[in-house]
Structures are given as structure tokens and as C-alpha cells.
């Protein structure tokens, strides 16, 4: 639950159609207000990196994803130094704000959990 991705209510919200209808606009508004999109970043660029699973996930990105991530980071640091976000037409559109890192992190977490299970299992003779 308290993994590198943090806790998420999203699956529960997505399951209920009424809840989804009410919360989706709020979530979209929040994502825009959070301000990372106007620095040209994606949500997964903000994920805390100092974690073995995320490090493993980052090492498994495709070369293209890795390059794009580094490029976005570079642009964002330059904008931060200049104290000036991107012009509004160059903000990251919501359609491009995809969770590109999440599947890799989930896979890495699953591997760690499996290793933990194997390391701590008890063998019983049948």
C-alpha cells in the first residue's frame, strides 16, 4: 500500500460511475493547477526516484522514453532557473500526460514482493 506509487483511490473511483462523473472534472482541474504541465513535465516525472523499485523501473524504460524524460527534466530545470513557465500553447496537453513509468514500477514492486515471499517462506513436507 505504501509503495513507491503511493496510495490511490483511482481504481475505486473508476469502478463507480456516479463517483467517476463527479470526481473526474475535479481531478482534471487539480492536475492542471498542480503546475507540472506548464513546466512541460508528465506526472510520472514527479515520482520519487530515491527508491530501488523506481530505479529498476527507470533502467527498464525504452531508449526513447529515457531520452524524452531527460529532455523534459532539462527543459523544466531551465524554466525553473528562469522563473518562467512555458507559454500556454506549449504546456503539456492532458492527452500526453500518460503514466509511462507506472507499469514498470508495478512490475518491479511485484518482483520485490515475490522475492520477499520466496525468501521468507516455510517449507512443509507433504
Amino acid at each position, binding site marked *: 500500500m505504501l509503495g513507491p506509487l503511493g496510495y490511490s483511490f483511482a481504481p475505486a473511483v473508476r469502478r463507480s460511475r456516479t463517483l467517476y462523473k463527479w470526481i473526474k472534472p475535479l481531478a482534471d482541474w487539480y492536475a492542471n493547477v498542480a503546475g507540472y504541465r506548464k513546466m512541460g513535465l508528465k506526472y510520472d516525472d514527479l515520482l520519487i526516484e530515491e527508491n530501488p523499485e523506481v530505479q529498476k523501473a527507470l*533502467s*527498464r524504460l*525504452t531508449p526513447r522514453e529515457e531520452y524524452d524524460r531527460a529532455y523534459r527534466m532539462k527543459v523544466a530545470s531551465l524554466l525553473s532557473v528562469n522563473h518562467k513557465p512555458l507559454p500556454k500553447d506549449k504546456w503539456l496537453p492532458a492527452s500526453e500526460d500518460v503514466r509511462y513509468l507506472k507499469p514498470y514500477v508495478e512490475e518491479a514492486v511485484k*518482483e520485490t514482493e*515475490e*522475492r520477499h515471499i*520466496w525468501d521468507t517462506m516455510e*517449507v512443509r513436507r507433504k
Partner: protein
Amino acid sequence: MLAARTTATRTAARLARSFATVVDSAGVKVAAVDYGQPTSAVTVLVKAGSRYQTTPGVAHALKNFAFKSTAKRSALGTIREAELYGGILSSSLSREYLALTAEFLRGDEEYFVDLLSSFVTSAKLTRHEMAELVLPVTESESTLAQQDPATRALELAHTLAFRSGLGYSLFAPPHSHLTSEDVRSFASTAFSKDGIAFLGTGIDQSALSSLVQKHLGGAQLSGSGFKASPSAYHGGETRVELATGKQTVFIGYGTTTPSAELAALSAHLSAEPSVKWAQSTSPAAAGLPSGTTVQSVYLPYSDAALFGILVQGPTAEAVKQAGQTAVKALKEATGSGLKAEELKKAVAKAKFQAASATDRRDSIFSVLGSKVLAGSEASADSLISSLDKIDSAAFSKAASALVKAKPTYVAVGHVDALPYPDELGL
């Protein structure tokens, strides 16, 4: 005592015959033999050797992908479970076949057959496993093979002799750009019904086929399989500088008709003594400088064979001297044929080699596996009876036909000092 021996022979013959039973189970060939060993072994033989590869090194990468994650269990799970059962998993690659072997205690066959069939049906072959687990091993194996003069010489000899197909190297190039997509497309073609056989030792035939039926039955093997393009022998000469290992020279001939006569010729020229610390009576071993070895190499494939002599020694001069003797012995054997008792001796040696190969687990699959895949009779008897039929006329015909072709000559080591083929009398 004689009676006991006859019984033993008869039992051995019956057991050897029992391997011949090849049945179709879930569309794939299954063959097993049970000598009553305390452990069992099951091998999946896949027609995915390096001769079929579409990209250099893809077969080698697939070999190292063995026992990585499948739809049923992860790579870690495979290892840990196998450890709990006390089994050994291994994979090996030849020019024609990829063999995945599981050795385990009797009674655990259910799990291990499931493990092997899940690799064939649902290996994930993921990109991150390729980068993290497969490529480092592939690269280090290739680098090691490059350092070993004998392996290097045989790889080069195959390339010179057969060029494409059988000429492709067993090892991926050290700096290959293989991707998991390459491996996946290779595997999807290779894992076909015609291209897979299950071979068991220490396991009952019907038990194995019902397990294969159970674990492979539901899954579809959709691959179309590989068709081997017919091999052609070319021959040639190459010299490669190598600073490590012994000075090595390979003198070989290839043919597109593998025959029992060549196995006998190889046994005749083999300079390995039958008794430790003794000198072989083989003509190729006469006056061998100390530290120098002369090995005869006979590598039969389904539609071709490479025959040759591998000379290794500490110095180029010693190799030259031993090479001259070996070539002289080869010329004598192929020119005027062998004397009756020499032929008898060679056939006996070849017969023993063939029979003992079917005795050992690691070699039984390479000897009989191809026959099982072809659906023909796969028993030690058929191998030995073909050697029994050799007569001197057939021998000298096969031998002289062999050396009519252009020789394959490879020198690995100090190329400045190692002899050229004409200096050895070729």
C-alpha cells in the same frame, strides 16, 4: 558367468530398443527410456539451432532465455521451485537443436514437465530480461569462446566449410545488437509441433507422454517451424591471431553425406590413448612431440558432416611436426585404405564411442535426438549396426571421396609461425 553375461546383453538390447518407441503426444514426439536410474531427466529438443537463425546470435540468445519468466512463473520462481525439488535445469545449443534439460528425482516429473512445456508454450521473452539477464551471459560466453583456440578453430572451420546454415556460429557476436523482438520472432517460428520432441531418461514412456499430453495438450504451438536449406561443402583456409591458449591447427574435410565409414576413419586417426599416460598406437600419434595433442573430430549433422583433425601444441614447431604426421596418416588411410585388422580396430573403437554416447545423459540426446525428431527408429542398435556393416571397399570409397574435396584449414595462434597447408603436405 557366460550365461549371466548373455542375460545382461539381452536386457541391454531390450532397453536400448525401448528407446526407439516414438509416440505422438499432443502432436509432438515423445520418447523415453528407463534403465531404472535413481534420477530422471527430461529434455525438450527444439529445432532451433544456429543453422536456422535469421539474425546472428539469435539462437544463442534464445538458449540463454531458457527458464526465464513464462506466463506460469517468473524466472526467480522457476529457480526457487527447482531448488526446492532439488532439480537441475540446463540448456544447450548445437548447430541444429536447442535442448532444455531438467534433471530431477523420480516422482517430481509432473512439476518439471510442466516447467519445460510452459517455456515452449508461453515464454515471455521480455525486453528487460534480455538486457538484465540474457545479454550479459551471452556476451561472456561469446568472449570466452573467442579466447579458446579449439572452439575458435571449429567455429571458423564450420564457417569456411558450410558458409551459411551450418556455417553460422553457435555464439552471438560479442557486440551484437540483438533485441528481444528478434528472439521473439525466432522463437515463435521455432516452437512448432514438428520442431519439438520430449525425450526422457529414467522415466516411463507412457508416464511421460501422458504428462506431455496434459501440459502441452491445451496449448497451441502455432509456429510454422524451420526448414533447413540444404548444406553445401565449400572449404577454404584462414589464419587467426590469438594470444591465449595453445597453438592450434585444424585440418578438415566436409561432406554432405554423413556415413558410418567416416566415424570409423575418425576412430582410426584418433590419437587419444585408450589407457591413461600411454601412447596411442594410432598412426597419427607416432612421434608426437610432448604436450601436443591430435584429436580427430567427426561432427555429423542431418545433411552434412565435418571431419577433421585438431592439432594443438605449446609451440608452432611442435604443431607443425604433429600436423605433418597427422596429414601423412590421413593420406595413408584415405589413399590405400586400411588393413583388415586396422579397420576392425577402428570399427570397434567407433562402436564403443557410439554406444557409450548413448549411455550418458548429456550425449544421448545429441546422438538420438535428431532421429526422434525425424520419427525414425532411435536406438543404440541402429547406430551400431550401421558400423557393423562397414567393409574395406566401402571404407576406402567413402574416405577417398572425402579427401577429393577442397580441404578446410584453420590456424589459430601465432600466425607468423604456424604452418601453411602446403607445409603440412595437404
